[in-house]
Structures are given as C-alpha cells and as structure tokens.
C-alpha cells in the first residue's frame, strides 16, 4: 500500500531523554508541540503523537537526545517459554508490523534534514559503537535491570555522508529505485527473557531483510530499525536522528563536558526570567551557560572557572557557536561572558546574582572526595553571598550526594532545598538540587558567625530533612 506523498498522518514519536528529566521533556513537548507526552516505564523515554505536517517541530526540542518514529508498541508482550519459540515469533512479527506510516515519516524526515542544512562536527567525542558482530550485520546492546544510562547513543552513530547521498537518490520518487541499507539495534532490559539482545537483533533483522529485501550494513545504513525490549514492553521504531543531539553546542570538549540535553533540563528547572543574571562558577567547557545563552537568551550568563584550559575552551565554544550563527546570517552575539576566578572567593558584588547553576566536581573523574569535604561548604557559602536574598536560586548537579547533603544541612539559614531530580551522568548516579536562597542577609546568619565546621547549633531555624544517601 503506497501513500500519496504529502498525506498528513498521525504517528507516535519516541524520544530518549536524560534519565530524571522525563517530566522536563514532557513540559517542553507540551510547550513547543502542544501535545501531551507519555512517560515510559522504561526510564529515559517519552512518547507523543504528532501529525506529519508538524514533523519539523521535533527538531526544535532541546531536551531530547534521540528521536524515533514508533512502528508498533506492545505494553504486555507475552514471550513464549522457550528461546527458539520466542525468536521464531519475533521473526514472524517482522512481516506483520505496520511499517508504512513509519517509513513515510522516515522519508519526510530525511527531506527535512536536507533542508535544514544538516550540520556536522558536533560529535567529536563519539565513542566506539557498542556492538557485537553477530552475523556481521546486526548491532545490539545488553542492559542490566538496574537503572543505568541508556547507552544506545553509541550504537546509533551512523555515517552522515552515506545518509545524505542515499536520501538524495531515494528522493520523492519513492522507494524501489535504489537499494536501501539498514541495520537493527536492539536494547534489552529485564531478567525474565530467555534470549539475548544479540539473538533478537539477529533474528528480527534477518526477517526484516527478507521482507523488504534491504541490504544489511552496520555502518553505512540508511534506515536504523530499533527493537527496544524492557520487561514486557516492546517497542519497534525507526530512528530519526543519526547523530545524538546531546553534544550539539560543544566543539571543544573537556574531560567532563556535560551533554547539552542535561544542561537544558537543569536550566528549565530554574526557570530563567528576562534579565536574570545567571552564574556558572565552575563552568568547565561552558556547556551549561552556553546552552542557556542560546535557548534562554533573555537572561545574561557569566561563565567562570579557575582553570586556564577551561576558560579557553569555554571561549572557543562560544566563538564556534557565534561563527555558526554569523554564517547563517543571524546576529552572532550571545548574552554570555567568561571570567577566570576562584569560586571560593568570587570577585562579584554581594547579592548581585539571580541564579547559580553548575556541575559540581564529582570527586571521581575530577577533584577528590576529600577535597569535596572542604570545597562544598566554602562554595555554598560564597554562592550564598553573591546570590540575591529572597529571590535567588541555585541548581547544582553533584554525584557526591553525601557531602552535599551534609554541607547543605548546615546552611539552613542561607539555602533551602526545594526539589531534587535524580539523574545519571556517564554511568554515575547524581542529583540535581534546586535550592532557594533564603531572605537572610549574608553575614548575619549563625553559619556565618561560626568559622569552624564544628558549629552545630542553629537557633530558631528549621532544619531540613537530613538526607541519607
């Protein structure tokens, strides 16, 4: 059954998002596309309906890492008892699925990307694809049942060159005129399955190849078919992004550069207002303030770090974006500045900053756990000093939850915990803490009076719930 090209159809789009920020993504989808997104039980995924005439809007989303169009979803898939039977059933499934609409969307998306002037060069930190070469042509990723970062992006990286050439050929004249290359990526999570993701990818992929007469190619593929199995939930989709969007702004990476989708999620949490002054006192390569300067550009960002390389990389990243904007003919200037400073002694006027947002050293990849015991309290105090009493906020990402909670519990007079989002950063469990600056003027709360860390008594102040981590 061929559809007339241009018929408007409704499909379900799936998006992978940083774990912990599913609600943020749903908010952004509601705001920019106007539909309600559904959050999957498989963490880090959201689904939403869209009509094909609005397809371009999905590429405006800043909170999503990867996008795919759903071919079919099973919420309670009943796997057969034996491995042989299960795999056989998967093979049979291939020829019965409703591929048409999804393929139509894939095609239209290809045209969209061409028009967009698909940019390259953002993904220099691509890691080796996580594939096991079973039969040489299928890719798969095994996942533990424990909440872990969706490692799929590594297996998804395709060859941009091949994508553009083949899209040109299989243009609006429809399929059949050119041999389409594909691959299957399988993600499997759950402890009750009798098969591995490798086996599923291989058998399902084999059946897909048989059905469509496409050619299997692991690296230079036109179509990436996704087979996601999470316990009883099975989703078959076709990828719409071949290069993960999460590193879109950064061209000069540092050792711990945060992905842009996570930066976006953190920024949304603090709801930047017009003319808010937003500081990142440990900016690293500037990922967070740069995302802010682009996406929430009615505020002003000051990115700072004590490290030479960090501030230079930040400036390089800013210049890279400005040049890209200038090339497109837009005004290149961004509301962002970079300063080299010591965050425990900020050269900033007291009470002059509206929001502090930063990725605090984890102590595993950078810094050390012992250093954090001293660093965190001094940081938090200095941040409280520069932050506007009453209206100020802080959004802080850290993996050292114990140290952070302890430091915060001693600062009830200056900071109150408002909300915490649990996320996964490079395989490490971390927390994004949203704090509110109390109305207390700095220098007058009991914490300021006591210099030593041994201070315990906090008069008249309600203690925050101590968090056990």
């Amino acid at each position, binding site marked *: 059954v061929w559809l007339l090209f241009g018929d408007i159809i409704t499909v379900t789009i799936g998006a992978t998002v940083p774990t912990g920020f599913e609600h943020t993504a749903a908010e952004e989808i509601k705001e920019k596309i106007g539909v309600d997104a559904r959050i999957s039980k498989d963490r880090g995924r959201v689904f939403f309906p869209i009509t094909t005439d609005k397809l371009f809007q999905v590429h405006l989303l800043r909170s999503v890492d990867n996008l795919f169009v759903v071919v079919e979803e099973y919420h309670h898939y009943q796997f057969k008892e034996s491995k042989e039977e299960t795999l056989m059933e998967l093979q049979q499934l291939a020829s019965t699925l409703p591929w048409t609409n999804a393929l139509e969307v894939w095609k239209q998306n290809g045209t969209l990307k061409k028009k967009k002037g698909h940019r390259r060069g953002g993904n220099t930190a691509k890691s080796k694809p996580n594939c096991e070469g079973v039969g040489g042509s299928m890719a798969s990723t095994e996942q533990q049942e424990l909440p872990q970062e969706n490692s799929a992006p590594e297996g998804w990286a395709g060859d941009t060159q091949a994508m553009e050439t083949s899209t040109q050929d299989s243009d609006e004249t429809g399929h059949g005129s050119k041999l389409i290359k594909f691959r299957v990526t399988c993600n499997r999570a759950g402890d009750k399955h009798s098969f591995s993701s490798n086996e599923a990818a291989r058998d399902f992929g084999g059946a897909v190849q048989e059905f469509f007469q496409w050619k299997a190619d692991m690296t230079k593929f036109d179509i990436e078919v996704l087979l996601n199995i999470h316990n009883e939930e099975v989703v078959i989709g076709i990828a719409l992004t071949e290069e993960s969007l999460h590193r879109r702004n950064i061209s000069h990476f540092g050792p711990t550069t945060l992905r842009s989708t996570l930066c976006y999620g953190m920024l949304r949490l603090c709801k930047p207002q017009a003319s808010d*002054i937003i500081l990142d006192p440990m900016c690293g390569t500037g990922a967070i303030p740069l995302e802010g300067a682009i996406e929430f550009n009615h505020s*002003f960002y000051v990115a700072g770090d004590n490290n030479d390389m960090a501030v230079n990389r930040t400036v390089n990243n800013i210049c890279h974006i400005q040049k890209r904007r200038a090339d497109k003919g837009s005004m*290149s200037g961004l*509301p962002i500045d970079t*300063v080299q400073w010591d965050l425990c002694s900020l*050269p900033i*006027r007291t009470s002059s900053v509206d929001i502090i947002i930063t990725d605090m050293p984890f102590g595993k990849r950078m810094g050390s756990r012992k250093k954090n015991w001293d660093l965190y309290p001094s940081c938090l105090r200095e941040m409280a000093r520069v932050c506007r009493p009453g209206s100020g906020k802080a959004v802080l990402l850290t993996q050292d939850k114990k140290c952070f909670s302890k430091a915060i519990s001693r600062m009830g007079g200056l900071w109150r915990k408002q909300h915490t989002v649990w996320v996964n950063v490079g395989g490490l469990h971390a927390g994004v803490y949203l704090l509110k600056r109390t109305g207390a003027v700095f220098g007058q709360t009991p914490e300021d009076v006591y210099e030593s860390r041994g201070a315990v008594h906090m008069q008249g102040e309600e203690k925050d719930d101590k968090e056990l981590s």
Partner: protein
Amino acid sequence: MKLLTHNMLTSHVKGVTKGYPLLIKATEVKVNEVEFNPQFVSRMIPKLEWSALVQAAEEDLPGELVADYETNEEFLKKVHRILLEVEVLEGCLQCPESGREFPISRGIPNMLLNEDEA
C-alpha cells in the same frame, strides 16, 4: 569582557574595602551585534550600579536616570549597546584602592589572586 559583567566585578584583594568599581584600561575593544530586547534592558537597569556604568562607558550616558526610561527606546538601545555589544578583548582591570592590575586576554579577565593577596 562586556560592560554588564564589569558592573558586577569587584576587587577582592585582602584588606581592600573599596574595590569597586574596577578601572578599565583597554588596549583592544570589539563591538559585536547582539539582538535587542527592550524588556531585558529596562529590567536590568535597576540591578546595575548606574554610576559605575556611566564611568565605564565613557559615553554620554546621563549621570542620573531619566524618568520613564522604560519606554524610551532610543535610550534603551544605547544602554543595550553599552551593556552587551561593546567588548574589551585585551587590557586590564585595576583595583581602585590597591592599584593591583587584573589582566584581560581574549576577552577573559583573570581575577585569580596570588597567595599573599588572598
């Protein structure tokens, strides 16, 4: 370094009590076009140390803010240019009390103190 940033920067050399505003000694300045947002400018003005901005701008900015500046688009555009579009690329910032100079290179002011100054 933009002048909006300069408006917030202060010297924190040990013992200094009047470290603000820092004196700007620029050897290379650039002007970069930034999209004009009147609401941004009018809301930012009350957050600024106006006299420090007047001093830094070296242009004819009124010493006192005029009434109804929020609706004066010409005025707002002028402030917009001064706050966001003018950038000091090379030079230094000088502490008004101690005379200590903080270098600016590639637009980045280096505010790190030596051990004896902290």
